[in-house]
């Protein structure tokens, strides 16, 4: 697991061989970069908000009661908006000890199956997130605090983020199917 450091210099996301897929993949990369940038700002703003709440309570005697929920919403947004980006960099860690033991052909099948099942799971999760978002929207659900912000905001970020993640894995699944065998690929 990486913990605030990179085990290897950061590589860009892998580009599929199929031209159409490559194009879609690049579009998604641009969306991911945009969301990453947005999330960077959100992260800094969250730190600022929490700092502000301490400062305002002690120096100006003005207590804030919205800082925790604002922070929760912001960080839920960061997490889900960037999960597709992390997947594009293959940054969701797993136990890879087995891969070195398998013959290359079997390993290729394993990698394909892992991505396919992950994709199905994320698709299911996205679908259920959108239903949750819809419920919160129709019923006008809010959190039960004084601040009471609407719940469709975080649910929506969760649904959108998981959908992007699903698309990202789908592209990776399709790349497994359409990529030329390694030895036939031209050097980049």
């Amino acid at each position, binding site marked *: 697991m990486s913990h605030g450091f990179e085990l290897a210099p950061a590589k860009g996301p892998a580009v599929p061989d199929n031209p159409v897929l490559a194009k879609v993949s690049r579009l998604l990369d641009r969306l991911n970069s945009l969301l990453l940038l947005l999330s960077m700002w959100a992260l800094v703003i969250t730190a600022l908000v929490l700092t502000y709440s301490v400062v305002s*309570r002690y120096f100006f*005697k003005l*207590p804030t*009661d919205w800082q*925790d*929920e604002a922070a929760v919403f912001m960080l839920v947004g960061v997490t889900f908006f960037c999960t597709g980006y992390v997947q594009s960099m293959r940054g969701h860690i797993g136990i890879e000890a087995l891969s070195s033991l398998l013959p290359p052909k079997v390993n290729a099948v394993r990698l394909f199956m892992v991505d396919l099942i992950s994709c199905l799971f994320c698709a299911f999760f996205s679908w259920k997130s959108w239903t949750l978002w819809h419920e919160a929207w129709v*019923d006008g*659900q*809010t*959190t*039960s*605090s*004084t601040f*009471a912000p609407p*719940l469709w905001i975080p649910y929506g970020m969760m649904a959108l983020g998981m959908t992007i993640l699903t698309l990202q894995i789908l592209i990776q699944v399709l790349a497994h199917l359409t990529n030329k065998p390694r030895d036939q690929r031209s050097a980049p």
Partner: protein
Amino acid sequence: QTTSLKISHQFPGGTINEGDFRDRLCRMFAQEVEKRSKGALKFAIYPGSSLMKTNAQFSAMRKGALDLSLVPLSYAGGEVPEVNIGLMPGLVTSYEQGYGWKNAEVGKELARILGEKGIVVLSWIWQAGGVASRSKPIIEPEDVRGMKVRGGSREMDLILKEAGAAVVTLPSNEIYAAMQTGAMDAALTSSTSLISFRLEEVSKALTTGRGGAYWFMFEPLMMSKAAYDRLPKDQQAILMAVGGELEAFARKSAQADDSAVAAVYQKAGAKVVDLNATTVKKWQAIARTTAWKDYREKNANCAKLLALAEKTL
């Protein structure tokens, strides 16, 4: 043929004879219903939020993914605004009045609304609460001015703000530490929780709910309507009957905890004070213009419920 039902709650798990009375009530309920249904209904109890997060219980019952739960009704206030009436400070000021809701108009209306939302109330449970403070006792609304207080609900926070307090929001596992360090000066919660959070160790004063209180919480034993409707009529009747019979136990235990909490804090050296009708009225007056008003304006159902509840005062 047996039906297995799951009961989830957030309180510490114990046995049928010992521990938090809300957990005991669930166990007594399970035992009695199993007996009367001759084993046709069986229960699994998940204490301490060991099945799901506290806030997910209500919604899970509505969707039929959870069968029963004993949970403060107002926790679902964001999802179903009407249920905020379950923790409306000053609206219930005695056990007499609270336990009378079930058969009053307000109770019938609340049951109807909950039914529409997919929830059936089996046992109508009310509990008073108090205030633990690390400095002076909180009696009059003026006492909270400038203090950092955890109201624990939207409605109480509105009142505290109006009274001039700095409202603090914290997860419940941080209450003790926050009282210790001074990040928080006082906390309002039920008598039972005042004991289980061990706040007497870090408090200098306690305001009890034994004499009279403006803070009464409705925490019923509820059932998913989907699960309830699946059962034959005779089993439904058993559930209702046992739930109703346990209300007496709940009331007795809640009142016992109101006295017990006083004893515990007294022993720890804290100053223990009670409220009287005049002080309760003062809190109620603030509640009317803040929390009640806020609630009334939410929707027509809320306005109607509030009006019916005021009739019971």
